Every structure is written in structure tokens, then in C-alpha cells.
């Protein structure tokens, strides 16, 4: 419990620092938000008026405190380009990003688990080496390049799947999933290698255990041993890693959503960057940080709950 309280304190401090830095970067360093709104050829009075209206001529610290209290009360500000409420804009789009992330993780697991099992079954064997080489190559292949190749082969060459677009779930499950397959696959083809390696290492250790030897002595088939007896105890690190990968995926979805035209939070952020919509940028960055820190905290809790050693280690500092 002590451990969790300590982690939670750290989480709050981190969030405070992140929001402060984001706020300062957006509000203090570049020219002025008011200039951006007023446009190129506006008089000084107009700019001053906008400043007055937005309350930009008050001290930074006060505005920061106001903004942070706003975050907790659901008032994340309003975009001055689309007049959209930032919180609503983010929550509208988040389910789409979330679906993409979940699909990507599922596909990554579907690739990683069999590959990891084959690798661990005979370390340094032929299968292990082939899989290792493929993994090495796919690490060198960033997701946006994979996406381009996938679009080229599956959409343009074979015409099996659409290259861009998004259908809401109300259009039917298959209609919804079809355009999501390629984006999720582009993310998964990068992520699976880390999962695979973690599973491989842990499974090699597990396969040395006595109870595996016993299962083998009982005449159990290799497939059954791997699936029933070895997989569960070896997947512990991999599951924790799934949580940590949320961060990488949050970054990854930004570029993938942009390529495939998926209306998620990443696309909202990129669009805001292109139009220099500072209030939306500020909101999105905070949201990403919040999501990431929360995910990490949940992983910590799960970890401490699953493994008593972590709990005691934490209690002693």
C-alpha cells in the first residue's frame, strides 16, 4: 500500500510538471496567441481587444492555475479555429484511437505468441534464427513505411482493403473493422518484436522447470506443453509490457491516423499543429500525458498485485 501511495504522489507531481511545461511552451515562448487569432494584417487595437477577451494580459501563473482547475472541471477551453469544445473534441475522437490501439495490440499478440513459442522451443535453432532475422528487419521498418507498403500491396495492387477512411460501429462490425485492419497491422508489425523477445526469454527459462520435464515424461505432446503449461507462467512480463507499450502506441497512432485518415485524437492533434490551434494542442498534449501516466500507474498496481515481491520491495523503499 505504501508503495502505491508513493507511486501516486510521484504521478501527481509528474502531471503538475507536464501541464506547467506544456502551458509555458504554448503561452510564453512563441509570439502571442492573440496575433495568431487576429491574423496577419490586424491593428494593434484589435490584437489588444482579443487579448482582453481571452484574458491573455493577466499574469501567466494565474492563467495556468485557472487552466488546471478547468482540466478537473471538464473545461478544457474552446478551439478558436473550429469553435469546438476541446474536451468534447477529444472524448469524441478517443474511442476511435482506442479501438485502433486495441486492434494493434491484438494483432501484435497474435504474431508474437506463436513466434515467441517457436523461438523458445529450440533456442538458436533454425526457427529461432529465422524469426530473429524477421524481427530484426521489422524493427528497422518504421510504421509509416510499413503503412505505405501495405497500402500499395493490399489496397492498390490487390484491392482487398480500403486505403483510407473510417466507418462508425453503427454501420456494422465488419464495415467498421475493414478499414481498420491495415492501420492496426502497420502498428502491430513494429510492436510485435518487443513482445516476442520478452516472451521468448521468459519461456526459455520456464521450459527448464521441473514440471515441464514431468509433463514431457508423462508423454504430453510438445504443443500441449507449450500452450497449456508453459505459456501462462511465461507471459507475465509480456502482459506488463502491453501496458507500457500504450505510450509507444499513443505516439504511433498519431502518424498512422494521419496516413489512413482515421478521425482519432492523433489526427486532431496533427490538424491543430498545422493550423496552429494552440488551445487544442495544449489539450491534446495534456490528454496524452494523462493517458500515459494513468496507464503506467495501472500497470504498477497490476504488477504489485500479481507479484508480492514488488510490494515488499516498494515498502522498504
Amino acid at each position, binding site marked *: 500500500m505504501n508503495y502505491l501511495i508513493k507511486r501516486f504522489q510521484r504521478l501527481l507531481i509528474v502531471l503538475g510538471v507536464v501541464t506547467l511545461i506544456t502551458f509555458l511552451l504554448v503561452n510564453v515562448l512563441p509570439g502571442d496567441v492573440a496575433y495568431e487569432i487576429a491574423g496577419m494584417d490586424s491593428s494593434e487595437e484589435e490584437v489588444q481587444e482579443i487579448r482582453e477577451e481571452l484574458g491573455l494580459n493577466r499574469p501567466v501563473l494565474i492563467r495556468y492555475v485557472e487552466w488546471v482547475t478547468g482540466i478537473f472541471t471538464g473545461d478544457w477551453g474552446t478551439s478558436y479555429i473550429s469553435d469546438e469544445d476541446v474536451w468534447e473534441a477529444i472524448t469524441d475522437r478517443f474511442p476511435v484511437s482506442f479501438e485502433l490501439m486495441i486492434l494493434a495490440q491484438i494483432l501484435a499478440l497474435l504474431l508474437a505468441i506463436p513466434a515467441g513459442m517457436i523461438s523458445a522451443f529450440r533456442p538458436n535453432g533454425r526457427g529461432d534464427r529465422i524469426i530473429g532475422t524477421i524481427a530484426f528487419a521489422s524493427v528497422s*521498418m518504421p510504421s509509416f513505411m510499413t503503412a505505405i507498403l501495405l497500402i500499395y500491396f493490399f489496397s*492498390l495492387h490487390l484491392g482487398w482493403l480500403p486505403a483510407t477512411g473510417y466507418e462508425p460501429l453503427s454501420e456494422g462490425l465488419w464495415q467498421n473493422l475493414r478499414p481498420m485492419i491495415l492501420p492496426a497491422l502497420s502498428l502491430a508489425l513494429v510492436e510485435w518484436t518487443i513482445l516476442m523477445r520478452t516472451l521468448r526469454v521468459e519461456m526459455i527459462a520456464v521450459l527448464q522447470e521441473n514440471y515441464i520435464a514431468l509433463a514431457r515424461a508423462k508423454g504430453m505432446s510438445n504443443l500441449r506443453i507449450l500452450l497449456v503449461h508453459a505459456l501462462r507462467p511465461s507471459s507475465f512480463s509480456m502482459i506488463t509490457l502491453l501496458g507500457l507499450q500504450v505510450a509507444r502506441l499513443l505516439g*504511433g497512432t498519431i502518424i498512422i491516423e494521419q496516413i489512413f485518415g482515421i478521425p482519432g485524437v492523433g489526427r486532431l492533434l496533427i490538424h491543430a*499543429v498545422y493550423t496552429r490551434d*494552440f488551445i487544442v494542442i495544449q489539450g491534446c498534449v495534456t490528454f496524452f500525458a494523462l493517458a500515459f*501516466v494513468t496507464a503506467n500507474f495501472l500497470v504498477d498496481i497490476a504488477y504489485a498485485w500479481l507479484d508480492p515481491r514488488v510490494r515488499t520491495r516498494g515498502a522498504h523503499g
Partner: protein
Amino acid sequence: MAELSQSSGKRAAATAPAQQDRHAAAIAMYRKRNKFGLFFWIPLVWLIIVAIAAIGAPFWGLPPADEIDWVYLQSPPVEGHPLGTDVLGRDLLSRIIWGARVSLTVGFAAPFIGVGAGMILGMIAGYYRGWADEVIGIAIDSWLAIPGLVVLLLFAVVFGGSLFMVCFSLGLLFIPTAARITRAATLNYAGREFVLAARAMGASDFRILTKEVLPNIIWPLIAFILIDIPIAIVIEGALSFLGLSVKAPTPSWGGIIAEGREHLSVSPHISMYPTIVMFLTVLSFNLVGDAIRRRLADVREGAI
């Protein structure tokens, strides 16, 4: 009984050479594993080719990267344009070579900036402990709380895209991990006898850090720079793919891939050639880095 002892004696005699064989085999395998094989030399040659092409870009007699050839717009490879031209009729080979300059500059500069700064922070945190450690720890945690690409987007919008800013902001991304590695290593060495001896002899903190601690922790950091180079190239590629790296007329790999994306169905070569070149370069950096890292690890173990 006699038979038994005889057979066991025979077995003992048989195991000795067998064991020797196994030792010899293990040593041979160890040597083979650590020799720089084809998977080191081929990528290295490729990297040297890319580097020479990029450094000497103005001297190869290629058409300038932004020169428009009105005769060949968006054409596949033809005479005079060995890799074809893009939508605006600019020579693709020339653009890829000029783009390599951006990628390689960022690829080398960013990890050095990041690991350099991270090293200093990590040594301070690990050596002085106390509140400095706490503050740096919180800073690192906060820095890690935002996904890397988001940090870069924020920087791109605030500071605009110049080559220096891209190197600098990308370098910032490497600070947290480098600082953590350094901190752990410094903690390990700060309590050792030779550090205590140096302190007893009246050495200043600065001298202890640079002369006693640094030589011991520098190797993992060099290995870390090697890992970071391909990562930096990939992230720069992603940024320029989004159009947020160096400004538009300057060619960059990600930028060329993005420009070709809309014409993938008609002229896939615009995107495919830079994709292939970038993939090979990143893969080569990974392979070369991996081989050197393994070598470094062995040297360290051998030295101890």
C-alpha cells in the same frame, strides 16, 4: 564387477578428449560469434556509400534537388534520371542523396546531444544523490510522461522547423534514458574503493567524476549512442513525413515518401525508392551497431 570398472574406465578415457572437443568447439563458436562477419561488413559498406554520396552531394554532377525537368514529370526511371522524377519533375536520385544529408546529420547529432546531456544529468544525480537526484528524477519522469512524437510536434509548432531545431528537440528525447543508465552506473561506481581513495587524496568532485567515474561508465553510453542513431533517423523520417521537419524545398526521406503517397497508384516509384533506401540504411545501422556493441561488451568483460 571387473567388466563394470573397465567400462567406466573406458568411459572416463573417452570423455576427456570429448570434453576437450567441446571446449574447442565452444571457443570456436565464441570466436565465430564475435568476428565481424558478412552481416557487419555488407551493412558497413552500404553506410559508407550512403555517407560518401551524401557528403559529396554537390560534386556528382546530378541535377540540383529542386530543379524541375518539364520534359519528365512524374516519370519512371529514364535516361538522365536513373530513379525517375517526382510529381514536379525533380530528379529522385538527387533528392534522395540530398535527403540523406538531413537524415545522417540528425542521426548523428541528436544522439550525441541527448546522451551528452543525459550523461551530465545522470552523473550529477548518481553522484550527489539527495535533492539533486530527486529533482532530476521528477524531471525525467515528467519528460517520459509525454509520448516522444507529441513532444516533437509541440517543439515543431513552437520553434518552427530548422535542421538545428530538429536535431536539438530530437536530442532532448534521448536524455531521460541516457540519464537513467548513467545514474545507475554512477551509483555503482561512486562507492567503490578507488573513488574513496581519490577523495581521501583530496580530489575535487569534478576530478573524481571525469577521471575516476567517467572512464568506467562511458562504454555502455557509447553502446547506447549506437542504438539511438537508427532510432533518430526513423523519428526524423516520421517528422518529415508529417511535414514538420526541415522546411519544404529541402528534400528529406520522410518528405519524399509523403509526397509520393498520393500518387502511389500511378507512380509507386516515388515512394518506393526512398522507402527502400531508408529501410536499408536503418537496418544497416542496426546491424553494425549490434555487432560493435557485442564487441564492446566482450572487451569490457575481458578487461575485468
